[in-house]
């Protein structure tokens, strides 16, 4: 993977980045850090299969991400399908059903 391809992914997914020994990038969703990846500084070729694994993508999906076939929404859906992103329902939204065993304890 070329450096500019990595940067396309960073911009498209809105990854947060920090420059350290390497350029670190991580994806946040709903305030949670979900996946992270990195590339080394300089213009050398990046190990695409390792970056792909860190981003939890297949070869096709990664190629689509670089070529604009896969959008941010698609990426979130991919992560949800893989249970990397878990939607936690807000506490108030769950219907308060009576516990069927509750009466057992009461009696």
């Amino acid at each position, binding site marked *: 993977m070329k450096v500019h391809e990595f940067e396309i992914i960073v911009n498209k997914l809105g990854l947060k980045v920090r420059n350290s*020994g*390497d350029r*670190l990038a991580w994806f946040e969703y709903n305030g*949670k*850090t979900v*996946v992270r990846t990195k590339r080394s500084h300089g213009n*050398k070729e990046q*190990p695409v299969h390792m970056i792909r694994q860190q981003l939890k993508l297949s070869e096709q999906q990664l190629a689509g991400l670089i070529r604009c076939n896969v959008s941010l929404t698609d990426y979130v859906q991919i992560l949800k399908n893989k249970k990397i992103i878990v939607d936690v329902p807000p506490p108030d939204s769950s219907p308060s059903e009576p516990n069927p065993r509750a009466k057992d304890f009461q009696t």
Partner: protein
Amino acid sequence: MAANPQYLVNQNIEQPKARIVPPLDRPQAVALQEKIHRIKVHVRTRASRPSKLLLGTINHAKFRVIKAIPINVESRGKTVIASWREVDEFGTGRSTSLACDDLGRTIAELYVSLKADEPRLGPDLANVWNVLRKYVVMRAPHESA
């Protein structure tokens, strides 16, 4: 034969040796006392790079490896990639040791960032954090001093 003095070597030592050493810019040939009948040549094949390693230390003063880290090593062109599959982390370099050094630095950074973000980690990174803590610990201040 009148030899040039600069070619004479170790004439005072009793062991039989070649008497004349040619200068470096000429073919390297020596005069031997005996005729050579047989020469045995051992050709050693270049040792191949191991594909799996156990990393027992990382090059960061603040961290200690408490369980050897299983590393996969592979080459892509001139780059060597050392990866820790269980946590999907990798390091690169021109040699195995440089790739392992890079991986060690990455592991140290990963430890610091995951520890700082512990309450906000997604399920996958939470799992990575749990694995990481089984292999690496931070040194106590008096240890790293």
